[in-house]
């Protein structure tokens, strides 16, 4: 007997008991949904995250007061760390000269940029930066120019603006040489940034970059007084060495005793990804765990529904045996039926899981990835479930005595 025939048969018997079947399928769907949903969420976040990491550059690492990704209660550990002051950072930069390229910057959120009657949304990130910032951070100048060391030292009121500001404030006009206002301070636009798209649903083009000296004087508050240091090693080979060098230098600048822990974070691409990976692992383990528990419950449901089905179709089994069905045909038929049931539930779960993932992607404005691995995993799991929980009912069906079964009403 061919598989197709059995699948059609299975679908017919599902149709004959729609409500009962749907209820059982629901639990499979929920289990698979949890697995696929978590998988899609992780793939989507990972995809978006990795794109940004690549953009950041391979040989770059950052020194900052607190880590950029943290979850759980770990923030308590970081709360009392002292700021990395502008003075410390400047000294660091000076000492690292010749070893690697260092950029200092600081940033704050929620600014509104104005020009005449034009306003932007209050989501502009104001970045205070030094002259190395653009090279080290891969901020590409689209038109105009970046500011130089002299403009940083002299606290020149100049600004380089992101694409969102160009669009919202200038409406097609050439922004170079024009003035904009940021928190009551006038800046002359000397350059524009190449569009960077968005990350986790936030536009990366709502940015304005001003000299760090100006930022520190007028725009830093207690939350944003710690300077972030970004260091770019001259080659990949020199990265590890540069990291070691930087840690030593920062420790001495912050007067740490040899037995004290670092009071700053060094983040390479790798360490950020691993922080992120541990977060996404939690999510995946959670999805997988809750999914598997629900699938176990679903499996018991499948076995139950199959046992009922065997009981109800005793006569049918008797007829089939009387006209010459061997054990293996009956076994095969009921196992295929169980697998079909599981696959159907699984497909519904996959569909809604992927849909939920796409929804999340749309919400944070990133393209959602379909977690192919997890989809394949789900299909395999459903097959194994059908096999595991369908075998006993199928064996029961195959072992029925044909005479008894024929007599059953």
């Amino acid at each position, binding site marked *: *007997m061919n598989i197709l025939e059995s699948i059609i048969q299975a679908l*017919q018997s599902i149709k004959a008991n729609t409500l009962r079947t749907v209820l059982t399928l629901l639990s499979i769907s929920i289990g698979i949904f949890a697995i696929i949903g978590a998988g899609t969420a992780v793939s989507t976040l990972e995809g978006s995250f990795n794109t940004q990491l690549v953009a950041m550059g391979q040989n770059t690492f950052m020194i900052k007061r607190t880590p950029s990704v943290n979850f759980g209660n770990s923030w308590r550990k970081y709360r009392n760390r002292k700021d990395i002051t502008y003075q410390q950072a400047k000294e660091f930069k000076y000492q690292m000269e010749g070893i690697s390229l260092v950029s200092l910057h600081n940033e704050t959120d929620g600014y509104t940029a104005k020009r005449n009657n034009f306003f932007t949304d209050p989501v502009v990130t104001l970045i205070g930066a030094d002259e190395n910032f653009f090279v080290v951070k891969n901020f590409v100048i689209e038109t105009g120019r970046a500011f130089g060391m002299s403009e940083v030292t002299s606290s020149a009121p100049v600004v380089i603006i992101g694409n969102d500001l160009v669009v919202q404030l200038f409406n097609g006009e050439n922004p170079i040489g024009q003035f904009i206002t940021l928190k009551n301070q006038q800046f002359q636009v000397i350059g524009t940034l190449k569009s960077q798209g968005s990350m986790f649903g936030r536009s990366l083009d709502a940015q304005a970059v001003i000299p760090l000296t100006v930022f520190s004087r007028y725009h830093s508050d207690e939350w944003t007084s710690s300077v972030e240091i970004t260091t770019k090693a001259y080659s990949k080979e020199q990265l590890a060495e540069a990291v070691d060098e930087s840690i030593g230098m920062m420790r001495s600048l912050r007067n740490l005793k040899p037995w004290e822990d670092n009071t700053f974070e060094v983040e390479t691409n790798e360490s950020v990804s691993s922080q992120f990976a541990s977060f996404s692992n939690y999510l995946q383990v959670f999805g997988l765990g809750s999914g598997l528990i629900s699938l176990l419950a679903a499996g018991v449901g499948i076995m139950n529904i199959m046992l009922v089905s065997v009981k109800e179709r005793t006569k*049918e089994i008797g007829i*089939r*045996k009387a006209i010459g069905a061997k054990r293996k045909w009956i076994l095969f038929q009921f196992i295929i039926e169980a697998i079909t049931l599981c696959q159907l539930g699984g497909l519904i779960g996959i569909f809604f899981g992927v849909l939920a993932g796409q929804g999340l992607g749309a919400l944070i404005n990133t393209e959602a990835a379909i977690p192919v691995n997890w989809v394949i995993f789900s299909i395999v799991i459903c097959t194994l479930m059908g096999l595991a929980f369908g075998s006993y009912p199928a064996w029961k069906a195959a072992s029925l005595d044909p*005479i008894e079964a*024929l007599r059953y009403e």
Partner: protein
Amino acid sequence: MSNPLIHIEHIARTYEMGGETVHALRDVSLDIFPNEYVALMGPSGSGKSTLMNILGCLDTPSSGVYTFKGLDVNEMTDDDLAEIRNKEIGFVFQTFNLLPRATALKNIELPLIYSGISSEDRKERAIKALEDVGLGDRMLHRPNELSGGQRQRVAVARALVTKPSIILADEPTGNLDTKTGIEIMKLFQELWSKGNTVILVTHEEDIARHARRIIRIRDGKVESDTINPNPVTSFEIP
């Protein structure tokens, strides 16, 4: 004389029921030859159903010898018996026993599916069998869309489609009115005259009268085994 299709020698069948041994068949010996038309008669509890189950390879005797076409049935596994039922025996039941969700055509195809016939061959043979019983226009009807007589014709077509050695009919007219019953008996008469071997199991004298040989069972033994001197051959439908 040719070799018997069925050779039974001193078979007995006992069941354990609630600690008691029930002797359904005690000592039965008989031979059935190709192209015989046999009626197996007896009141309920006589053991005729047990005998039919054994003849139909649904059950095996507790003791004695049963050879089918020279093969020792006692030695067979469940799957061997299934194969014999599939290829050599065509069952027709009192309650038709069609699959309710399958069309007439699918019902007839079923034994062919189990004997591993390709799907085109299957369909062709099933259509032919259905036409032979006069239901060529009812192929896609489900059992509940057919009358009792039509259902039994489908069952007969299903029994015939594998070209079995024996047609084994258990009270085939039991659920039919007299007129339809006679139609079905006419069908068996035709099958027999075309060379098929037919075994009828019944408790009705009227039905048994169609057969050429009548075996009466009582208390698990053969009471009489006689040639029917006046078989019914004309079919006047009242």
